[in-house]
């Protein structure tokens, strides 16, 4: 059984259908990069996986469980209770384009907040683990700094540590380096590279082709709300079969 099973997912914003029946499986331990022009639906798909967005049709399962929905006896999907969805989300890490570190908390408190508040980890234990995580992203000396005192790259590394503190079985990355100055991109990609090497299951929306080429097990090409092509990066980058993939790669490489 795949860790993430996406079946025929449809999503609309008003009259605009941004996902038109996406199906995709991600195995445990796999690193998958989603590619596509802006508006192709890749970020929306990512946000549907942990139910930050509702879906209109199809289903998404993580570790065999629907996220955000329960299935009625008559087979219809119904949105489940907030507390139930929240508990499932706790095991799915997410890293945002704009970091979204909690502005009123220090780096350390950003990392301990959810384990203490959601998982009920004793504060002393959460602190110890948070300091280890901050050390692992190279920021132990910034533990008592507030987000506005950190560079974008440092903030994003704290955000990764914050997500990892929940011991997720899956990590979602939504253009994690797009808001960074070019010289800060490397440190974040390096952190992600090490995370991938540790065996974490990752779904990454990014425009960093070198990352996709070197780290991804599989690259998914999306266009107009559909998956149009997928394959190992070596194959997809050197011999794309779909004309839109060719056009996209020609523009971006």
């Amino acid at each position, binding site marked *: 059984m795949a860790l993430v099973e996406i079946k025929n997912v449809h999503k609309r914003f008003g009259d605009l259908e941004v996902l038109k029946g996406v199906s995709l499986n991600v195995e445990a331990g796999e690193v998958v990069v989603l590619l596509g022009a802006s508006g192709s639906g890749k970020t929306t798909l990512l946000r549907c996986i942990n139910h930050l967005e509702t879906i209109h049709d199809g289903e998404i399962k993580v570790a065999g469980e629907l996220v955000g929905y329960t299935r009625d006896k008559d087979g219809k999907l119904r949105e489940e209770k907030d507390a139930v969805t929240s508990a499932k989300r706790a095991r799915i*890490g*997410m890293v945002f384009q704009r970091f979204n570190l909690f502005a009123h908390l220090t780096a350390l408190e950003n990392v301990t907040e959810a384990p203490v508040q*959601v998982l009920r980890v004793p504060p002393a234990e959460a602190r110890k683990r948070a300091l280890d995580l901050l050390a692992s992203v190279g920021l132990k000396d910034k533990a008592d700094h507030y987000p506005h005192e950190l560079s974008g790259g440092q903030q994003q590394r704290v955000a990764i540590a914050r997500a990892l503190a929940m011991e997720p079985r899956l990590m979602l990355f939504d253009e994690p380096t797009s808001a960074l100055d070019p010289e800060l991109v490397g440190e974040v990609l390096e952190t992600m590279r090490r995370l991938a090497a540790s065996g974490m299951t990752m779904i990454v929306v990014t425009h960093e082709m070198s990352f996709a080429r070197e780290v991804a097990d599989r690259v998914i090409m999306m266009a107009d709300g559909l998956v149009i092509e997928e394959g190992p990066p070596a194959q997809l980058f050197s011999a794309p079969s779909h004309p839109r993939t060719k056009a996209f790669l020609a523009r971006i490489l």
Partner: protein
Amino acid sequence: MVFDSSAFFETLFSSTFIIPALMTLGITFVAMALAIILGFGGALAALSRHRALRWLAQGYLGFFRGVPVLVQIVFWYNALPVLTNNAINLPALIAGTIALGLNEGAYMTEIIRSGLISVDPGQREAARALGMTKAKAMRRIVMPQALKVIIPPTGNQFIAMLKTTSLLFAIAVPEIFSTGTNIYSQNFKYFEVLFVVSIWYLALTALLTALQKMIERRFAARPRRNAAILAQEHG
């Protein structure tokens, strides 16, 4: 103009105003507490995804902000007993405090709503992605940041409320101003008595201002924890 300084000092140092001053403070705090509770409810309703709740908040805001507070005060004290055939007949102090609180709640709704929308939606989203429920994300992440925006104007409203309590003289609540009116209607020393009344309001306002400064300082800047202590604790 003749300033009767003996009447002035006698009034100033008489104990007559102590109880009314405490009453004025008490009404202010209770009415503001009511207003803040209503304000939170109103703000959450105004930002709700349910249209009925948004309409309810809009109606509350429109009505209580649109009708003069003096009219509302007299309504709660004089009109409500008539309207309900004396089933609801509130003492002046309670009727007046409710009227002030309900009216102020409309303003607090707007203040709290503006605080909540000042927080970047990404903060809430990150909290939700970490598994916090809506309520927890509000309490732990959104509200602490919104408070920085909510507290300064709330201090303002407190001080405005302190002075608005003087309207309760219309329903004979023995607060500072109506106590003054009782005195000058007997000795006709309007100026001296109103001077004393003003001094009492100024003193209480100064007290609240000091309190406001203290609270703002606590919420504005959290002291950076000492890095050395942190390093020591964790080797």
